[in-house]
Every structure is written in C-alpha cells, then in structure tokens.
C-alpha cells in the first residue's frame, strides 16, 4: 500500500453531507482537505442532455453500480439474507454530488418531538405507549437547538414555501402543525400542477390544512449567502433521477462545488473507493489515522489525516465501522453493542391511486412541486381511537411523469395486462391518473439492524452489508389508517375510480419506497447507546466525525436531507470554533 503525505482532513464521500463539510471547512479555515468519492466526477453542466427517461429513470444511470457493491436483505434474523441484485426500494447515488444530484428536493423539517421521541411519547402517552421491542431513542439535542441550523439550510438551498409557524405565530396557508421557524422561506412557493390544486381544494373542503410543499427546486431566481445564484424551476419534469439542466434544483454540484473549487485547500479525488478507516487504539485518546482506498488506477492507497469524516451515506458509514473494527457491533440477541443498530426506513405508500375523467398534463411538474397536508403528522395529535404511534403526511405531487414508468397504471376493474383491451385502457388512463401519497414515520426496533454478511462480497472481496428489516404492526396499522383518508380525498377530487393501497405486508425491496434509510451509527447523549454525540463526533475516536442519516436514531415522516445538512452545519461550527483550538471531545 502506498502512503500519501498526511493532510489535515479527509472526507469520505462527496455527496450533500461530505461536500457541505468540505465547503464549510474550506471557507472558514486553511485546513488542507481531501475528499474521496468512489463514483465519477460530475459538474452542474453535465445535465444539459440528460432528459432521457430510459437511461436515467429506468436504467438508473446516476445510481450506484450494483455489479460492484450492493447490500443483502432478510426479513428476520432467523433467515438467510440474499443480495439485492437490482435497484428497487432505494436508489443510492454515486459520483460527485451523491444522491443530491438526482434527488427530488423535497425539503421539510422534522417535527420537534422527533428529537426527543422516547421522552416525549412517554410523557404524553405513557411509558408503554411505544410498541413492544421498539428501540426508539432521544437524539441528545432539541429542535430549538437545531432550528438556527435548519434556517441556514433553507438559505443555502433557497427553499421555496410558505411558512405556517413563525416563532409560534400560526399562519394560514402554511403548515401550522410543524415546529416554529425563525424566518419565512427564502423564496415563495412553486407553481402548482393541476392534480395538486385539485388535491388542495378537496383537502380544504374536508377540513384539512393543505399547504405548498417546501421545495429546493426553487420558484424564482435566488442568490444564497455564499453568493451562488440560481434561476427558477421551469417545471420540465425531468427532475428526480436526473440532474437539473438549468440548475434550479439545489444540488451539491451547483451550490457547493463552485465554492469549493475557488478554494485552493480542497482536493476532490473521484474514483477513489474507500475500504477502511485505520486507527490507533493505544494512543490516549484513541484516534483515527486516516483511510485506505483503491484509486481508479487500481492502486491501494493510505491517506493519513488528522481529522476523518465519514460521509458515505447510511450503508457505507455503518459498513466502514464494522469492517474497520471500530466500536462494538450491535447484537440483537443480547442488546449489546451499538454499531448497526436502529435501522429505519419510511412508511411511504401510494395511499390512493385516482382515475379522473379530465387530463392532468402530468408531464409538467418538478420533483417537489405539490401540495401536502399534515393534520395527522403533528406532535399534539389526539391519539384516542388510533391504534398506532406517530403519523405521517399526505401529498399530491406533480413529479413530471414520463411514459415508460407511468404507462399501464389502471383501475383494479381492468384485468388485462397486455393486448388490445389493455392498450386502449392504458392510453385513456395515461394522463388521467395520479396517486395520493402518504409518508409516515418508521420507529426503530430491536429487530431491525445491520451487520456484515457472512456470504456475499463486494468486487474487492469485502463483505457486503446485511440488512435485517421488516415492517411491524405499527407501520401496517399506520398505512391502513392512511388509506381510507386518501380515498376520501380522491373522491372529493372527483375521481371516477380509485385503487386503495392494498396494505403493507413484508418489506418489499422490489418497489421504490424512498432513499431515506437511517441508522447504524446513531447519535445520542451517551456512548452506552450511541456511536456519536450530537456533534456527530465518535465517542471513542474524537477525531472521527460521522455525517448523514446513519446518525438518526429513528426516521421521521419528513424527507431527511435538511436535517442531515443542519447537523453538518452544527458540527462544522463546533469544529471550527472549538475543536481546532482544543482537539478533544465536544460534548
């Protein structure tokens, strides 16, 4: 193995989390920083010709190359896990910008209680309110402490939306059930697809409180505090699974890379596949020494660094600790160990698919343009009569639908799946069909976790990560509760026929759910139950920081990226203001 000259900081992963940390450190310090990204290098200008559904949305051109690395899955610890051989339930990215290039850019915040979930649910609903064998935990931080960082994230992205709660003052037309925010959104709400407008009016008529979805596909030109200007979204509809050709979608390549490239103290190495974190266990305190990786040339390289940041998303953040022997792996049988625990996903279901008589012009839209209501996604929800804990929000979005993926979604009354009758129905339904979505919280359980697979290996011979994951009654009941509400809204929208969600059974890796998978290296207020502190600092190796959703003790209903970025800002502040002056534990 070749050893390179030591640097001040090495960042593993060039997605949202890694590049935001790189930007902050580059702007505010003179540290010598290296970012290692396994995928190709990418630039904002790469997307001028990517509006091709087949290669991008169906063949997944921007996603991780599964021939090299995937994960294995089993529903419970008694079974044998098998590899997920093709993309399905989630779509992790690869290459500079990570999943932040091809994401939808829906940017809500988590509810205040999410951060103190164990304490708050016990206080409000009794010590036994959470389901049996849950592993729900507090994060060791409150929403109030995080709020200023959320606001910085909104300013970075230029988020478009309408506030529903500014410093406790409730505002009609916004989400009045969310936590307070210190300021209004930087830009006004996006334009709305027709389907979302039908949904808004129907929801209102039923007494719900619809609001425009917060969106980082911005409604108008905006210049952020770093001086980066972006134009507004044109609703081209080639959005999620694509990079934006006009730069209206917030992406690491258009918001972070331009700042980083102006600084001489950051080097970005694409095609660098990191394998291990090397550490020194005998020094006091123990310390990470750097990381080893395989360069695109095939050479094994050791990059020593004084500070190590893991920002390789949930799966590899967890896998690196397990492969490197850092910390104690979680053992579901004894409950001992922390690394790999608290794997959560999200209860994302197509609650009601509605068929209309009128055309919807569904090709116009963006990954986030739409209307939501959160009447069942609030910390003070009256739970009498509800047989599950926590909740989720309903939404009608106009993603910009494309024909390969959207053709052939038909009312249950039509049985044909090919041939003339099917074709005729599919043509007539094509632009008259849309789905009301529901996104709900996924609680952590002792039985959902990650460890190393004993059989399957990646292209370099390292064990794959193994997921042990299934839905439990709380999620099934939540989905069953959401379905009739969505059906009721669809009816009020004037749907001619409605397919209700058929019910949540076993975790299904063949259908897209969301790429919001959290846990494995969770944060908390003590090393007994967590891997990092709320400053994202490793409890045993204080010069190791872990960024991203792997640090979430459980998932919320809301999309995770603003929360990921808020924690990165907070960690960066603590590092620049305190750690660099006095290296050591921050918490």
């Amino acid at each position: 193995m070749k050893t390179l000259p030591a640097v001040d900081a090495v960042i593993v992963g060039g997605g949202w989390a890694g590049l935001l940390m790189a930007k902050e450190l580059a702007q505010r310090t003179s540290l010598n920083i290296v970012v290692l990204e396994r995928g190709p290098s990418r630039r904002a200008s790469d997307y001028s010709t990517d509006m091709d559904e087949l290669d991008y949305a169906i063949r997944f051109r921007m996603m991780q190359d599964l021939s090299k690395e995937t994960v294995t899955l089993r529903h419970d610890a008694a079974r044998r896990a098998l590899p997920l051989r093709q993309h399905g339930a989630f779509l992790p990215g690869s290459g500079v910008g990570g999943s932040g290039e091809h994401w939808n850019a829906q940017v809500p915040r988590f509810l205040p209680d999410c951060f103190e979930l164990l304490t708050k649910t016990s206080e409000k609903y009794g010590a036994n309110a959470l389901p049996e064998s849950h592993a729900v935990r507090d994060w060791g931080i409150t929403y109030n402490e995080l709020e200023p960082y959320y606001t910085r994230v909104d300013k970075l992205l230029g988020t478009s939306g309408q506030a529903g709660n500014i410093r406790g003052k409730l505002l009609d037309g916004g989400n009045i059930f969310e936590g307070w925010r210190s300021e209004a959104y930087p830009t006004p709400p996006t334009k709305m697809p027709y389907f979302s407008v039908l949904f808004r009016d129907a929801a209102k008529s039923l007494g719900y409180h619809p609001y425009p979805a917060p969106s980082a596909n911005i409604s108008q030109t905006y210049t952020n505090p770093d001086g980066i200007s972006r134009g507004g979204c044109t609703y081209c509809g080639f959005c999620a699974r694509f990079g934006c050709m006009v730069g209206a979608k917030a992406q690491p390549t258009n918001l972070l890379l331009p700042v980083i490239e102006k600084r001489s103290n950051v080097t970005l190495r694409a095609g660098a596949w990191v394998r291990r974190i090397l550490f020194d266990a005998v020094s006091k305190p123990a310390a990470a020494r750097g990381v080893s990786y395989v360069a695109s040339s095939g050479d094994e390289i050791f990059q020593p660094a004084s500070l190590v940041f893991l920002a390789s998303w949930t799966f590899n953040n967890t896998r690196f600790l397990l492969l490197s022997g850092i910390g104690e792996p979680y053992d579901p049988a004894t409950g001992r160990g922390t690394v790999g625990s608290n794997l959560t996903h999200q209860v994302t279901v197509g609650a009601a698919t509605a068929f209309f008589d009128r055309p919807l012009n569904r090709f116009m839209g963006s990954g986030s343009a739409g209307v939501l209501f959160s009447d069942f996604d609030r910390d003070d929800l009256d739970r009498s009569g509800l047989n599950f804990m926590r909740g989720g929000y309903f939404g009608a979005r106009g993603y910009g639908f494309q024909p390969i993926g959207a053709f052939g979604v038909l009312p249950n009354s039509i049985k044909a799946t090919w041939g003339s009758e099917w074709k005729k129905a599919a043509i007539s339904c094509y632009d008259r069909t849309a789905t009301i979505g529901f996104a709900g919280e996924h609680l952590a359980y002792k039985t959902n976790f990650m460890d190393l697979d004993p059989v399957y290996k990646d292209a370099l011979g390292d064990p794959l990560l193994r997921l042990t994951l299934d839905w439990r009654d709380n999620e099934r009941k939540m989905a069953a509760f959401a379905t009739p509400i969505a059906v009721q809204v669809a009816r009020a929208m004037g749907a001619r026929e409605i397919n209700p969600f058929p019910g949540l059974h076993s975790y299904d890796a063949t259908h897209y759910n969301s790429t919001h998978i959290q846990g494995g290296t969770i944060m908390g207020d003590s090393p007994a139950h967590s891997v990092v502190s709320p400053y994202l600092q490793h409890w045993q190796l204080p010069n190791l920081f872990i960024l991203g959703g792997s640090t979430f003790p459980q998932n919320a209903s809301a999309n995770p990226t603003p929360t990921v970025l808020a924690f990165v800002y907070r960690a960066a502040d603590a590092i620049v203001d305190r750690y660099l002056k006095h290296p050591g534990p921050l918490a």
Partner: protein
Amino acid sequence: MRRRHFLTLSANSLGGFLVYSLDRKASLLSAQHKPIRVPLRFFTEAEALIVAAAASRILPSDESGPGAREAGVAIFIDRQLAGPYGRDRFRYTQPPFEDAPRELGYQGSATPRQIYRDGLKGLQGFHFLAPAAQDEALRKIESTMFFSLLRQNTIEGMFCDPLHGGNAGMVGWQLIGFPGPRMSNFDEIEKYYGKAFRPKPVSLRQATGSKVRPSEDEP
C-alpha cells in the same frame, strides 16, 4: 464473427405521423417510402421476427392507434440486449444464487440475453401463427420471467426517446400525448388546468441539438 442479420421493415409499418379524426380514431401517415433493412446487433433474423410479432400482441396495432410494430420495438430490444443492459453490466451477479421470497427481487443468474435466447426457443414459428393462436401461445408463458421482460421491454421500446431505436417517429408519444423533453413548461403549467396541453413532440436530439449517446452504444 457472427453472420450479419437484418430485420426488414416495410415502408408503411414504421414511424409516421399520427392524425386523429373527430371520433378520436387514429390513423398513421407513413413517413417512410421504401422498406428499410436494419442490421441486427443481437438477434438472428428469425428471433427478431418472433420478438416483433410477440411485441405486436402486447401492444397491437389496432383501432386505438399504432403499436409496437410502428414504434420499431424489435429494433429497440435488439439494441438493448446487445448493450450493457443485455449482459447485466450493472447487476450484482456474484454467486451463490438461491431462491428467494418475491420481495427480494430477481435472484437468477441468467442475463436478459440468456432469458431471451431461451425464451425464444419455446416460440419457434410464432410469427407464422394467426393472432388468436399467438395470444394463446403468449398466455401459456405469461408467468415466466421471459414474458415479463418482453412486456417491460415492449413498453420501453414504445415510449423511449427515439435515440434508442424505439418509438420511431415518436408514434408512442403521439399516442398518449407526451411531448418528450421540453426545456420549459413555466408558462403552461398553471394555464391548462383541466384542459389537455399537447405540444408537438420533440426528441432529445431535436430539443438539444446535440448528438446524445445512448447507454447501449457504450462499451
């Protein structure tokens, strides 16, 4: 070297411009004048004829408009199978291969190429059958992986950007009112509530003026 194979497409079968009469009956104005011979990359000529015939039963050319035949779906599938998709360039294909519950997805070792080659053996002479007999033959294999790939690839070939060799003349897009890539819908998105907005389709190459390279042409 494999012997060169061609699929001959008759003048009036491929692409064209869709026009609708008042009662929404679609008819196709042919764009071609003479038959074209398309060199095949993966199929033999006999295989291509079977695939073309089978795709035509999945999306038939009928009174609701043109189908897989006019879109050139067989050409599309041939190119896909010859390219990285056909050989599972991006799928995890390390052994051991085990049976799994449906929720873990396809676990087989066979690539799309192998699945087609094997599946087509069972459909020899298919293209000489009458439509009813063809439907009968397809019903027998409906639950196979081969059929589900064929069905999926037929939809892809009907509605993909023409740069992939399917959706010839954008007949698929005309059929459903999809305009293809449009740089902006800013002025239209809130203007057409409840009314169909159907701009004339453009392909990616037309919209961008650049020679976009499809993934099937990559090594």
